[in-house]
Structures are given as C-alpha cells and as structure tokens.
C-alpha cells in the first residue's frame, strides 16, 4: 500500500486528505433507541427544494405517521408526525445552521401512546410499477440521508426517465466521527440489500455497486454476506480517504467515469443513493412507513457517553445529548457544537436545534479537536492545491475573494467547489478557506438576486411609462372628444339660434 500511495502521489493522483477518523469506540457500541421526548419541533423545510405546506391546525390531534405538511412544488418532500399527539403551535425554531436564524416549524406535543396511523405496506414491491414506487417514496417523505437531503423520489423518477444503468450505493461515510451508516450496514445489512433491490427496480438500473471505505471491515463483511446471492449487487471496498463519500468522487473511484461539470450523475447513467436512504425506501415500500426517525451519531470529546442513537425527527439536540449522558464537566471544555460531521457539518449556536432528516450526527468538540487558532497569511505552499479533490486553486480563489473580486474567483472555478473542507484542513496557515468560498457564494447569490431585481424594476418602470403614456393619450383623446362635443353643441346651438332668428323674421 505504501508503495502504491507513493506511486499515486508521484502521478499526481493524490486528492483528498486522510484525517484521523475517530469513529471508534462510538462505532463499535450497539445502537440505542432514544425514548420519546415531550415535544418535537418539525421544521417545514428539512430538504432541498421548496418548503412543505402545513395541513394541520393548532390543537388538532395526529397519529404517528400521519401527514402533517404536504410537499409543494416539483422538488419538495412531505413531513409526517413522528409520534401521536397534539399540534401545539406552528411557529419558528432555530435552524441547524450557523446563522442561528429560525425556520417555520410545526410543534408537536407527544401524548406518549405512540400510536401508528394506518399503514399501507406492500408485500411484493417488485410487482409494483417503478412509477408507483416513486410515488410511494415521495409520499413517505424520504430524502437523502447522507446529508444533502435531496428528495429521493425526485432522483429515482429522474433516473428512471434518463435510463440509468448503474445504481451506486454510498456507504463511504468518509466524515470523521460519524458511524451511523457503518452501524446500519453492520446491523441491518439484509434490509439494506432489500432496499437496494427495490431502488434498482424503481430506477431500472442493471447493476448496483455498494462502495464502502476500507476502514469499516465489519460493515464490508456484513454487506458482502447479505449480498452474497445477488449477482447484480456488488459490494466493493474503496480506500479510506476524505471526501470519498462525495458523489462525484465515489463515482469516479467505483466506475472510473467522471460526472461532467454542470451536469449530474444521471447524465452518465448513474444514480447515487446513501445506505440509510436504501433502508428508508425499504420501510416506505414494504411497511408503508414514512420517514419519521433516523440513526445519528453522538460523538466528540465533550460527550459523556458517545454512540449511535435512533432518534425521532424533530427531537432537540439538547434532548439527544441528555440521553447520551450529557456533556462532560457540564460542557466546560466545549469549543464547538456541530450538526453533521467535522468536515462539512454546520456549527450551531446552541443546542436547542431540532434533528432533521439530513442530520447525521451531533458533535460536541473540545478545543483540542477544533484546533482553532488565528490564521497566518498564506505562504502559497500549495497544500490546498494538492488536497483539492476537484482540482481547484483554493489559495488563488481566497486571495481574490479577500479583495472582493468575486467574479475573478468564479473565473477560476469557485462554482465547482464542493466545500469539502480539504483545503482548510491541510492549510498550515489555518486560513478558513471554506468560509471564504461560502461567503463568496452567498455574495454572488445576493448579486444574482440584485440583478433579477434590477430586471424586474426595469420591467415595472417600463410598464409605468406605458401607463403614463396611455393615460396622457386617453386624457388628450378625452379632451379632444370633449372639445369636439362642445364645438358640436355650440354649432347646434348656433344653428338653433339661427333657426329661431329665421323663424322670428
């Protein structure tokens, strides 16, 4: 391996980084199921796309699994009640986002009975038409559980339309600390394989490739055993290297194909889904269960009792942490709160943030793990260039962004950045490169909005001008008409007067 590594480095194929994965011991401990919290906070937007629209009223009682917000628009996902209880409010909750801003959310008070609504399972999913599977997956509110939370049904039906040939199942889980996918593959390999078969049926792919990083030997063994009889499901170990779990990188390693920039995996006949999503699809089809809970990793040096926990969607991170033994030393050494992994996760301002469908972990890191320190100036060492899995020049982009030359940064590839964080991870000057890129993307989006606004303004100004012209014209016409009428009247009067004069004579 060492020699191979050296060769790859010489050949320049050395993208990515090899962070200390810190997955164990949390990954080796059995999964615990968290008891029902008193209240659940369900943001209306837990997925990419347009937010869901509430279909319940305050005070209404709902059963577990009942639809409480429906999808609206082409890319969206519905939300279901994770337990039975009463809707107490439709208000706001802090989003799992560094800004600390709030999101509209439905707040549900559990009644403790945890009573399911009627479920519509299907014993033989392979008898269903692919479109019907897509419909059911959509109705169950399944989204990508790897973190991006893209509605799965949209991907499945899109893939079926563009005739994909390969289904790639992402078991990479390259983020350090996180082990929920690892745990799922170890504990529920058979169910995952079943889910993969259902998805393969739904999208029409011939082959399913399961890529698992080679730092998870137990998961690889379990999956290989479960997929043993299936000729068209192949479990392949891939080298542990961050960001192996990124869609384009995993596709490249597994199939050797490259997704075109500005394109999607469909375009080269590939559909990618996470292992957790496979499991959720299976539950949605076989048992008719909507997505109301997920497995997530609670980890970090500050957590007293780290491990993987099965949590209802909408549970506050605060409650999850309390279940995992709380923070060591009452959170005295806590340096950063994170939802997701340490490489791409979101910093959150406080723990009163709900678990959403895409939350794969809750991390409480101490100062040594965060290792934050004031940045030094860039010394152009080029580490970031070597680490970038996309082939960008992070140092050049950040220098341009520092000088607010956003358009120049776009010219050298800002839009291709996947914000994986490799550059900032290796930077000896500790420059927060990703923050520069996120900032620039935000600024560019704002500029784009400004441009749209300018266009709308121009249109409105034009309309106003037309209106003013029209009004002026109408006024002129009316005046002309009145004048004509007046003149006609005067003429008539004169004529009449003439007649009377004539008559008088």
């Amino acid at each position, binding site marked *: 391996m060492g020699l191979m590594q050296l060769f790859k480095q010489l050949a320049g194929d050395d993208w990515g980084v090899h962070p200390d994965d810190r997955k164990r011991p949390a990954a080796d401990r059995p999964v615990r199921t968290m008891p029902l919290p008193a209240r659940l906070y369900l943001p209306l937007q837990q997925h990419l796309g347009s937010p869901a629209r509430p279909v319940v009223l305050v005070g209404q009682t709902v059963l577990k699994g009942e639809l409480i917000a429906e999808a609206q628009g082409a890319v969206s996902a519905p939300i279901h009640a994770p337990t039975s209880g009463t809707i107490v409010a439709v208000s706001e909750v802090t989003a799992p986002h560094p800004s600390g801003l709030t999101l509209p959310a439905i707040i549900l008070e559990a009644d403790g009975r945890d009573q399911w609504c009627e479920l519509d399972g299907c014993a033989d999913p392979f008898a269903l038409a692919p479109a019907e599977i897509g419909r059911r997956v959509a109705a169950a509110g399944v989204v990508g559980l790897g973190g991006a939370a893209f509605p799965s049904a949209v991907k499945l039906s899109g893939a079926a339309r563009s005739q994909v040939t390969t289904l790639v199942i992402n078991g990479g889980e390259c983020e350090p600390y996180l082990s929920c996918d690892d745990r799922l593959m170890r504990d529920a390999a058979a169910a995952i394989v079943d889910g993969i078969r259902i998805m393969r049926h739904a999208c029409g792919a011939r082959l399913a490739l399961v890529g698992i990083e080679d730092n998870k030997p137990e998961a690889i063994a379990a999956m290989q055993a479960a997929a043993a009889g299936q000729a068209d499901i192949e479990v392949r170990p891939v080298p542990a290297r961050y960001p192996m779990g990124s869609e384009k990188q995993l596709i490249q390693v597994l199939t050797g194909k490259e997704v075109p920039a500005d394109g999607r995996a469909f375009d080269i006949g590939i559909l990618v889904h996470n292992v957790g999503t496979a499991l959720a699809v299976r539950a949605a089809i076989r048992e008719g269960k909507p997505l109301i809970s997920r497995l997530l990793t609670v980890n970090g040096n500050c957590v007293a009792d780290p491990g993987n926990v099965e949590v209802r969607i909408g549970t506050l991170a605060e409650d999850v942490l309390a279940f995992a033994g709380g923070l060591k030393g009452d959170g005295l050494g806590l340096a950063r709160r994170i939802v997701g992994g340490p490489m791409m996760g979101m910093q959150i301002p406080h723990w009163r943030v709900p678990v959403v469908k895409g939350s794969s972990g809750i991390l409480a890191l101490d100062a040594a793990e965060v290792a934050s320190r004031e940045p030094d*100036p860039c010394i152009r060492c080029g580490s970031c260039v070597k680490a970038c899995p996309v082939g960008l020049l992070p140092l050049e982009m950040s*220098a*341009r962004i*520092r*000088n607010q030359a956003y358009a120049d940064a776009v010219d050298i590839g800002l839009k291709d950045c996947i914000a994986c964080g490799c550059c900032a991870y290796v930077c000896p000057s500790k420059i927060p490169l990703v923050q520069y890129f996120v900032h620039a993307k935000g600024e560019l989006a704002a500029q784009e909005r400004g441009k749209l606004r300018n266009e709308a303004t121009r249109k409105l100004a034009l309309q106003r001008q037309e209106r003013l012209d029209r009004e002026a014209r109408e006024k002129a016409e009316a005046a002309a008409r009145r004048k004509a009428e007046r003149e006609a009247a005067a003429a008539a009067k004169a004529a009449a007067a003439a007649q009377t004069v004539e008559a008088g004579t």
Partner: protein
Amino acid sequence: MSEILLLLLSTALVNNVVLIKFLGLCPVMGVSKSVDSAFGMGLATTFVLVLASAASWMLDNWLLQPLGLGYLRILCFILVIASVVQFTEMFIKKSSPGLYQSLGIYLPLITTNCAVLGVALLNVQQQYSLFKSLLYGFGSALGFTLVLLIFAGLRERVALARVPAAFAGAPVAFITISLLALAFMGFSGLNV
C-alpha cells in the same frame, strides 16, 4: 540563420528596450494592470514598431538620403509613426471596443513611446539593411511585449498581496520592475 537568432535574442533579452535601455516606460507602467490588456498593448506596439521600422527605413533610404534631407529625419519619422498609430487606434476601436477602452490614453500615446522612435533612429544610426531593421524592430517589440507580460503578471499577483498602504500602487510597481531589471542583468555579457 544563427545571426538572425542572435540579433533577435540580443535585442529582446540582452539589450531589452525597457529594462536595459529604459525606453518606453510610460506604457509599461500604465498598461500593466492586467495581463489581457498588456497583451493587447504588446501586440499594438509590436505592430506599430515593425511597421514604423520598415516605413522609416524606406523613407530614410529612398527619400531623405537621396535628397540630402537628413535633418528632417525626426520630423518625418514622427509623422509616419503618428499615422501608423492613428491607423492602429482606428482599427482597435473598430475590432475590439473592450481593448480600446482598457488601453485608454496609452493607445494614442504609442506615438510618443520613445521605444518606437528610438528603434527607428537606431536603425538609421547602425545603418542596418531593410531586413535587419525589421528584425531589430521585431526583436525590440518582442522584448517589450515580454517585459510587459511578465510585469503585468507580477502586478496581478502584487495587487492581491497585502502591500503596506505607503507602498500600495505605483511605489510597489516601481520596486517590482526594478527587481525585474536586476534579474535581467543576468543576461548582460551574454554572447554565444
């Protein structure tokens, strides 16, 4: 063949117009903020330089010298150069308004670019043949464009650097080009 190459190399590198002879510094300082406009300026100057070398040689050898009007040389050369520049300006304005905009005042100022007049006069002084004059003009233009390009690249880098306020802008540009001239001294005494 080797003589041609040598003349080109020596005019472009060893006796570089900008860094060694210090001719034509005005556009070098003025149009070196971006590589793209520097390239455009380099092309425009190359065009003017080569054309002006040829035209002035013909003028000198076929008109001024036979008529014994050597004292009108500078006047006539400037007339020719100004016309060529005027023509170039019209052409660029028509074909590339963006480049025209970014070159700004420096485009008509090629007229007073002493490199152009200097090369034309040096051609006469050294009694080069028409072909050699062309080569000399082209070599000088090559050196000019090379320095302009390198310098523009450096300035683009420096523009992104955290230059102290006291040195920002022209001062650091002068220091950069002085260091570049220092580097070009390595070519001094170069002979094959």
